[in-house]
């Protein structure tokens, strides 16, 4: 497995590995001080860890490294990035190149997530306000 990290300088200890059936909202104090959380994709098509990731980032305010492991393929990257993952274990050929391009593959997003991207809806609202002003 090759490891790809968007923040190579970040600390990786202490780390916490979760099953995709674990309830992240019940972690409580177990989360304190954790620098790396590893979420698992047992299959490409099992999307539970996407919800775990968003809850960790957006509900619990987790700011450490969030790693995807298991069946991680380059076609998932736009989704993984939007849900807050910043580290990936994958053995797929071409993964590094895909990662470099994944954020710009779609110039438009519709859903507000914790990734900071401005949605099409918010951009339209800004434009309307600019026109009105």
């Amino acid at each position, binding site marked *: 497995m090759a490891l790809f990290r968007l923040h190579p300088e970040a600390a990786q200890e202490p780390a916490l590995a979760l099953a995709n059936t674990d309830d992240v909202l019940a972690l409580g104090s177990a989360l304190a001080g954790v620098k790396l959380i590893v979420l698992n994709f047992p299959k490409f098509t099992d999307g539970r860890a996407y919800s775990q990731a968003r809850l960790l980032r957006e509900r619990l305010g987790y700011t450490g490294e969030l790693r995807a492991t298991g069946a991680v393929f380059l076609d998932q990257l736009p989704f*993984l990035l939007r*849900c807050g993952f910043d580290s990936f274990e994958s053995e797929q050929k071409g993964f590094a190149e895909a990662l470099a391009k994944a954020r710009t593959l779609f110039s438009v997003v*519709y859903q507000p997530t914790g990734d900071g991207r401005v949605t099409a809806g918010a951009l339209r609202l800004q434009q309307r306000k600019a026109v009105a002003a």
Partner: protein
Amino acid sequence: MPDTHFYQYDAYDRALVAERVAQFRDQVRRRLAGELTEEQFKPLRLTNGLYLQLHAYMLRIAIPYGTLSTRQLRQLAAIARKYDRGYGHFTTRQNLQLNWIRLEDAPDALAMLAEVDMHAIQTSGNLIRNVTADHFAGAAIDEIEDPRIWCEIVRQWSTLHPEFSFLPRKFKIAITGSPNDRAAVRVHDVGLRLWRNEQGEVGFEVIVGGGLGRTPMIGKTIRDFLPKDELLAYLESVLRVYNRYGRRDNLYKSRIKILVHEIGVEKMREDVEAEYAATKDSALKLSPQTIEAIARQFAPPALRAKRTKVPEVEALKLENRAFALWLKSNVAPHRVPGHAIVTASLKPAGAPPGDASSAQMEGVADIADAWSQSEVRVSHEQNLVFPHVPIEALPEVYRALERLGFAEANIGKITDIIACPGLDYCALANARSIPVAQRISTHFAELSRQHDIGDLKIKISGCINACGHHHVGHIGILGVDKNGVELYQLSLGGDVDFGKTALGTILGPAVEADKVVEAVDALVATYLEARQAGERFVDTYRRIGAQPFKERVYGAV
């Protein structure tokens, strides 16, 4: 370009669809180059509507809320001509399926779709599917609010949703804005019904866990009244609960209806409301400006009130019996006086339900350009609808439809059959559906007899996945395979009307293919003898029960 009365893409929507085509083109290239195995490629092509069927690839094209401009319909005709065999199949989910697509051509077909702001995004796969609505939206007299405004809002939010693209199973949402539900909201994963409360506010009743398939269930209401601006927060909450807790161990138990059934509606409500408490008042809350900007695009055409009694129409009615019947069954009232909603029947006697050739699609577009504000709808009953026709144009519209073969006066009647593609196309099917529909529609072709029989919905599925909605047919027909022989199971008493939604009950042993028509004939005869004034088939069945029908069918078969 003519004025439009529904949502038009802006630069953002166009960019996203173009980028999705480019992404898919690359995925197809990788598949053809051997960089992706079929196992890896399958979920990728499915999320873009490309199925591998019995004979070829099938491309399922999304028609959001069933609304098409004539420009879009003409492009669909052109795509079918260029990349398929010159025809397409309109489905029960307001989609269009092309059955003979080559994998190499799929990216180009999608690029042609993108030219007219269309796509095949999320028409398959375990994710939020094309959102469906009342096909009379924006024209119906009983409408509280146009549901398509909300469908469009849901369409954008669900498109490439990063959290919900790998759900346990597919997820279908339907929205109705009328008390008379024409969108079957109680048999969807989520059904939304707009209604006005005592304070005069309009909001959503949220219904969860309905569905057909192998375990049919009627959806349960988990919220009576949801403020409209919190729709996305609430949907995100429902989907998150489903994504986290829906079963993934068994394909047949993975729909949200099974989760609701297993944990109970109370627990489901509790979980969703807890999630919603943390999600509402967030960036998902819709601003009045956002809602208004989308609603404005659905502003109905400025139709002037016209004469409702037109001498030419009255004269033709007396002179032409088929036209008189057509007025009764295929023409519905419009909210603007002097106008009507016209349904073109894609069920002429003996034809496969829902099929249209490229030439027929173009003919329909011509009619809509001339007489229906350049707009066409696809109904979940696999017909096409002209939403805004002046009554004075009805004779001309009728004649034009006659020339296309779409003037059959059978909407809501025994030959207005819903059928899935069945074993003629589908890799999942156990039995053929289309030939059964064709035989029934040939047998009952005579129009005055159909009108005498009255409203009777026959729905046919070629397997237990129930794409033909047989559970909610007044007469449901399910194809089953017994030791290599195609047999058909009959069920009676299903209904999708709101407040009356019911699942049919199996009548008895399955019958052979060549006995289906006789059996249906026996059911109809039983009804005709027993009916009281004003009773539809299904009403009589509810009153007298299954026994008389059973005796007649199994005595006769």
